[in-house]
């Protein structure tokens, strides 16, 4: 099944399909606020963002996004419990120093957590590693080993295992390969996984 794009991105389309009209949304690592801006314009959400890079935080603020310029890993504790309907973490999980703490905070301050990450179990990653004998480099993992922001690689299976351990509830799983949504063998075939979780 082909996925339409939001702001040129398939994963944004999947994420925004999960967010209902008028929701209170916090986007962790919101960048220049493009997704929050789109959701505000198209779904009239009440959005907040967190972004650590000063140039991106300024651009988000300049487009009217209520952005907090700071480190998301040390700044979630301030928010009260249940402050948001949805807390989004898109393509950032694998860059966090303490990913589990962040996920737990997301489920504390949000009624739902939306987590999207690149799947390190995709067949291209496996082949790249198997045949090159080097750290995998693919479309989604283009970085050299020393300059990669990714420090905690994970696969769909790994994430499922963590969810089971933590006893979180999965409300929706969505898997994306290129521009197609897929259903079977996601750990082999999905480039990007998007989970809708509840605590």
């Amino acid at each position, binding site marked *: 099944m082909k996925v339409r794009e939001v702001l040129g991105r398939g994963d944004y389309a999947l994420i925004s399909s999960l967010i209902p009209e008028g929701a209170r949304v916090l986007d962790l690592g919101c960048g220049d606020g493009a997704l929050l801006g789109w959701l505000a314009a198209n779904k009239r959400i*009440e959005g*907040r963002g967190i972004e650590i890079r*000063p140039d991106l*935080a*300024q651009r988000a*603020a*300049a*487009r*009217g*996004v*209520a*952005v*907090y*310029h*700071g480190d998301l890993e040390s*700044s979630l504790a*301030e*928010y*009260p419990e249940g*402050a948001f309907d949805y807390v989004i973490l898109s393509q950032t999980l694998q860059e966090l120093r303490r990913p589990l703490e962040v996920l737990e905070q997301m489920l504390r301050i949000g009624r739902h957590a939306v987590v999207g990450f690149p799947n390190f179990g995709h067949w291209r990653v496996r082949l790249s590693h198997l045949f090159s004998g080097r750290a995998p480099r693919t479309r989604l993992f283009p970085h050299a080993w020393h300059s990669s922001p990714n420090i905690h690689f994970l696969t769909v299976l790994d994430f499922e295992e963590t969810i089971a351990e933590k006893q979180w509830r999965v409300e929706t799983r969505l898997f994306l390969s290129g521009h197609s949504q897929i259903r079977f063998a996601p750990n082999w075939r999905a480039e990007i996984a998007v989970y809708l979780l509840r605590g």
Partner: protein
Amino acid sequence: MITETQFVRFDSLELDCGETLTDLQVAYETYGQLNEARDNAILILHAFTGDAHAAGIDHQGKPGWWDNMIGPGKGFDTNRYFVFCANVLGGCRGTTGPSSIDPRTGRRYGLRFPVITIGDMVRLQKKLVDHLGIPRLLAVCGGSMGGMQALDWAVSYPEAVEACIPIAATARHSAQQIAFNETGRQAIMMDPDFENGDYPEDRPPARGLAVARMIGHITYMSDESMREKFGRRLRNREAFSFGFDIDFEVESYLRYRGQQFVGRFDANSYLYITKAMDYFDLTLGYPSLAASLERATARFLVISFTSDWLYPTYQSLEIVNALRSRNHDVTYCELTSNYGHDAFLVDIAEQTEVVRGFLDRCHREFRRAGA
């Protein structure tokens, strides 16, 4: 754009210290037009030694202190917004202060002027806002002491503030900030010309006031901006004087700024306004800063600057985190600048973009709520 300072008088003002001032004057300037819905008014709050002349050119050809931020197409776009600024209570630029005539005695107040607070300044500004017929301000905004007033506005008059923009400000003065202010006050009061505040108009405690200003100027800059601006460059000489004349550029600059200040600022106003800043503590009467800010219904934009060591980022974060703890609508940016505390006045490119985007959204939401 030639701007005129206007004046309005009010019968009385009750003060936090318990006294009441009578027959007060407020000096203010306005830019742009108040629209029919009265939903485009922005009150600009000046810092310590500022005045009502915030934008445009006055009759002496002097630009306003925030002319780079206020005007057609600028951060505070006067094509869209009605922007106004008033000299603070206790000031010496047209609003009642210690250099005004005490109506009870016919003489200048001097140190008989009651000690005032940031809250008193805001209460007087509220009278001006009522006088102008504005039920709810689109925004209150100021840097430094102006930011403290903006915060006080949002908490004291939540029904009258749609958006609050404190820049390089704090919710309470720290020991270091009080210490610098006290050093300035002592320099003034120890000047033999101070005469317990009853100095003649043409013979102020100029040496003390100049030293106070020199100290102030150092705190407004950063180590880096001073190195860039002056370094160790000598002033009009090739070698050291081996004396106590001016050797270095930085000495010349500070002496010049100190002397220049004496011509435009009243020593008693210096005492009263710095004391008001030192007394400022938004948590007074509340169990916490969050509990105090909880009264506010405004959206917030908080800005700090990386090299500002007088009002450091942690003080802005204290405000932002208190707001976040109550899930308030707050935008926060720490802007990168070498200019120290002065950054909000001089390093304005990024500040302009952020303020413009925030105001645009607030105006849209304000209109939606009003419609």
